[in-house]
């Protein structure tokens, strides 16, 4: 839960900010359709609570530090001003389901020095991994059911662990607005696989969403298994 854990930033208080974030969380929960009532009664845990905190902070027009501490894996420090993070653990050893992730926030200013040596690591790498491991197979709390999604920029895939199916889905979202259901069908993957991808891209802020009525009226699913050059190259390159 946001605000729990020790204060790592010299005891400066952040009570009002904490209240703001909790309000945002509550609003997000309440905005989601009633079908999620059961989920609302559960406290977010693990990476889900961390993802909610990150998403909330990204909505705040105040520079912010964030510290996450997955149990047993050391603290992760994030400086949003520089889109960077620092962690003693390699992302290759990212724990899938830590028992707890402590979350702490601390406001800063545009001019305050960074809290670790820059450039640090690219925050996109952490958000991608965290996004794929949050919300189990469900929709991120801030996403609305039935929304359509469109890519605003390609994530830098050479720096992210990804599958070929994820690359295909990203290419689809780069060319048309799709709901998660449509994306799963077009890519011929399980719904949960498409949902996790959309959660991650949304956390990274590289997709826009639109309600169904505003999306372009293309009755989606078409592609599925590619029989073009892509599939032949994939076979040739052993991917």
């Amino acid at each position, binding site marked *: 839960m946001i605000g729990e854990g020790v204060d790592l930033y010299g005891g400066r208080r952040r009570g009002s900010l904490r209240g703001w974030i909790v309000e945002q969380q509550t609003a997000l929960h309440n905005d989601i359709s009633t079908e999620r009532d059961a989920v609302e009664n559960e406290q977010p845990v693990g990476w889900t609570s961390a993802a909610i905190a990150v998403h909330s902070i990204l909505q705040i027009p105040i520079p912010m530090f964030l510290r996450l501490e997955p149990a047993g894996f050391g603290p992760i420090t994030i400086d949003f001003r520089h*889109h960077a993070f620092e962690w003693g653990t390699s992302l290759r050893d990212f724990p899938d389901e830590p028992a707890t992730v402590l979350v702490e926030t601390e406001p800063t200013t545009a001019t305050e020095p960074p809290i670790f040596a820059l*450039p640090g690591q*690219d925050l*996109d790498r952490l958000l991608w991994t965290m996004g794929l491991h949050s919300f189990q197979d469900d929709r991120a709390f801030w996403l609305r059911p039935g929304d359509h999604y469109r*890519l*605003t*920029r*390609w994530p*830098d*895939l*050479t*720096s992210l662990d990804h599958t*070929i199916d994820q*690359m*295909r889905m990203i*290419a*689809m979202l*780069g*060319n*048309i607005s799709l709901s998660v259901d449509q994306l799963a069908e077009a890519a011929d993957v399980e719904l949960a696989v498409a949902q996790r991808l959309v959660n991650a891209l949304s956390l990274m802020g590289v997709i826009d969403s639109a309600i169904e009525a505003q999306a*372009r*009226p*293309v*009755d989606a699913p*078409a*592609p599925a298994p*590619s029989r*073009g*050059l*892509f599939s*032949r*190259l*994939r076979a*040739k*390159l052993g*991917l």
Partner: protein
Amino acid sequence: MAEHVILFAGPMGSGKTTAIETLSDIEVVATEAANTERDIVDKPTTTVALDYGEIVLGDEEKVRLYGIPGQRRFDFMWSILRERAEGMILLVNNDAPDAIATMIEYLDEFGELYERGGVVIGITRTDISRTPAVADYSRALAKARPGLVVPVLGIDPRSAEHMRMALMALIINIEMRETWSTREAETV
């Protein structure tokens, strides 16, 4: 025989020849000459006509990889190859002066390919210069050419994994764009 032409473009020193060598199934045919612009890029030779490599897909299909010269005085080669190209991997070295402007300049030259979604941008030498960030190129692109999103990737041209990823991203983006634009046209 089915053939696909992929261009490798970018300024001198961005890694085009290396990228083709990394991907090619054959020994790369390179047309290097003494570099007369060592004040710009300090390497002894540079491509003057083109580099050529191939990826062979069975007996009936080839992907031809052409590296086009980075120096503008050879840009007549650009127009010859641009006509035949299905896609282009544009390499921009991050340590170049005003690298983002260079990217936009190249995309203006290859606007038609870009509009077809047939471009991947590979940012090289990010180990030498950490800025601008890869995302900065995407943001500049969104401003200069809104409405179309193409892959922008940090790339080491010596890495087979990176080059395969760039090529696959290029091909899937072209295929998706073709598929969806056809369907959109049918819907309208």
